[in-house]
């Protein structure tokens, strides 16, 4: 299981409101690692994540998960969105939110089975939130909210986990708890990709890194990626030429790719 290719991003170029955010991103990620997606603000980290999950359409390139298109392997993939991306005033209990992890195309229109409910409880126990199962989500602290999201993701029993800034705005105890859960997943051979903006903690958290700034700076084991040359390239001087070009493209409504370009072998992004 370990070191088989979990994720392949091939020549991915993507734009947000016509402004190119990712240029020709190309890398492969082996399974069984804790992988940090790093880069400064606006470097396209979240856009990369959204493209991997097909939540937005790329201008070119494709993504393969375990060598297949996303739709064939959806059940092996789990997503933890940014905590602030949802309304925590939504009328639901902790249990109900974690149960959403068991909603699948297979049980459409049907109620959850008792085996699903068991998995929900087990996930809550893993993140230390079982005691809060009936609590309203509006009453949770930031750290507890994040634990609920992680529990929902665990309930999906996936092989590859994609998390958007799970360490933002959580207390130290939650940070440690999340980290130990994630290491546990890695030790089981799962692949965990995490969008992370804090360089200070990155080296300690991850064993693999993807360093971005609109283009791919480096991807590989952290020892190979986390060095001053790469970091200066990512965080130091702006890529003036590339960003100027991007602005022109957005302003003048140029197509980013000529119509017949689309490199969509197998089309992972339709």
């Amino acid at each position, binding site marked *: 299981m370990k070191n088989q290719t979990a994720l392949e991003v091939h020549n991915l170029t993507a734009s947000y409101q016509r402004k190119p955010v990712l240029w020709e991103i190309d890398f492969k990620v082996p399974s069984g690692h804790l992988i940090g997606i790093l880069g400064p603000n606006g470097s396209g980290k979240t856009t990369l994540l959204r493209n991997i999950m097909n*939540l937005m359409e790329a201008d070119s390139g494709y993504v393969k998960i375990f060598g297949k298109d996303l739709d064939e392997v959806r059940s092996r993939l789990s997503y933890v969105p940014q905590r602030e991306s949802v309304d925590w005033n*939504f009328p*639901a*209990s902790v249990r*109900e939110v974690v149960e959403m992890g068991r*909603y699948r*195309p297979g049980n459409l229109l049907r109620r959850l089975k008792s085996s699903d409910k068991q998995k929900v409880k087990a996930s809550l126990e893993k993140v230390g939130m079982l005691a809060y199962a009936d609590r309203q989500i509006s009453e949770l602290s930031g750290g507890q909210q994040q634990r609920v999201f992680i529990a929902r993701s665990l309930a999906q029993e996936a092989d590859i986990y994609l998390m958007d800034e799970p360490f933002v705005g959580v207390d130290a105890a939650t940070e440690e708890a999340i980290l130990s859960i994630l290491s546990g997943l890695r030790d089981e051979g799962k692949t965990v990709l995490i969008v992370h903006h804090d360089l200070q903690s990155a080296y300690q958290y991850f064993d693999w890194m993807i360093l971005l700034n609109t283009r791919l700076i480096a991807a590989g084991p952290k020892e190979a990626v986390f060095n001053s040359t790469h970091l200066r390239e990512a965080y130091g001087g702006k890529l003036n030429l590339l960003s100027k070009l991007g602005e022109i493209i957005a302003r003048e409504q140029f197509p980013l790719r000529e119509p017949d370009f689309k490199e969509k072998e197998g089309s992972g992004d339709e």
Partner: protein
Amino acid sequence: MNDVWAFFSFSDPTVRIVSLGTVFLAMSASVVGTFAFLRKRALVGDAIAHAILPGIAIAFMLSGTKNPIVLMMGALISGWLATWAMEYITEKTKLSNDTAVALVLSVFFGIGIMLLTHIQHSGTGNQSGLDQYLFGKAAGMTEQDLWTYSVVALLLLTVVISLYKELKVYSFNPDFAAVSGLPVKAIRRILNLVTVLAIAIGIQSVGVVLMAALLITPAAAARAWTSSLKIMLFLAALIGGISGLSGSLISYLSPAMPTGPWIVMTLSIITLLSLFFAPRGGALSRLLKQRRHSQKILNENLLKVFYKLSVERKLEKSGLNVAELLAERAINKSDFAAAIKRLKRKNWLLAEGKKLKLSSIGLVEARRVVRLHRLWEMYLSQRLNLKEDHIHPNAESMEHIISPELEALLLKELDFPTQDPHNSPIPYSN
């Protein structure tokens, strides 16, 4: 009073049709509107309601009848078109979502009014009925209308019940639902469709102008009472139904009164009452909470005074009188009397003739307050390096807030100090 009886006996077939029809369509709108409310799409419903008008006008012009099914087809098509237009504009242009909503609302409504005016001036025999869609006219409901509405209401209910779980996750976190492989596009289309349907039948009684109220206010009122989506849907339907019934009752009692506006009036009253009386976050519960807090503060401040005078300055072993207490701390007379009464009821103070004395449990409580005050002063001066003359006012409010857990943390962090920054001893319970 007899009229009220006559209404609720439902012996008059017109009453039966109108009130049942109104209740059904108010309930449908409330249930569907709950999802619009939760997805923060309140104004989208308003826009769709307005956008339905040209559909009705065109359906009438083409068919020449006022058959509810024909008109509803027209309403559905233009409502659907409006939904699509709002999504398209938001997605494909740089305009924000609220601009898209406003744009669609005004353009479609404008066309609708134009067509309606044209119909009215063209002199078709039965044209006069169409303007009822503008402000609603429940009294004109026929038995055929009632059948149509009940079928639609049943359909909506079936959709919401069977898709409950999917609608829930889609409303809470659509991206997550999409990544989980749920058919979010289909869910969105179905939700759009039932919303348009509910609005299309709802405007019959409240009209396009007031339709948004029927969609959103029941959900807003229900949300004040519960944090469970299931109960919220049920309550919203109940509130919508009650408003529909009372709207038709009022217009039955005095026929000059229009049904639609009275439905909305009832709804508004229920919503205002809900927001005021709701157990959590309602205005009343906030007021009560504030009162409880200010009572607690006063209680604890008085205990402190007792502690200072009787324990630290060793005045009057036998007790203190009111004048001595008031001299130490200025408290308005009536508040003071009420606080003394509360402390006596808790057995924290004992009366001896005209004098008052701390009981043993009162002493424990008084020590606690003084301890928290002095610990917090310690914390401020040690950790925040605040000057001595700045720490007292801050500690004065914090002493009432610090919980036992926080106190334990504070003690650990300060390593059980014995004196505060002003060199007063910190009283521990033993």
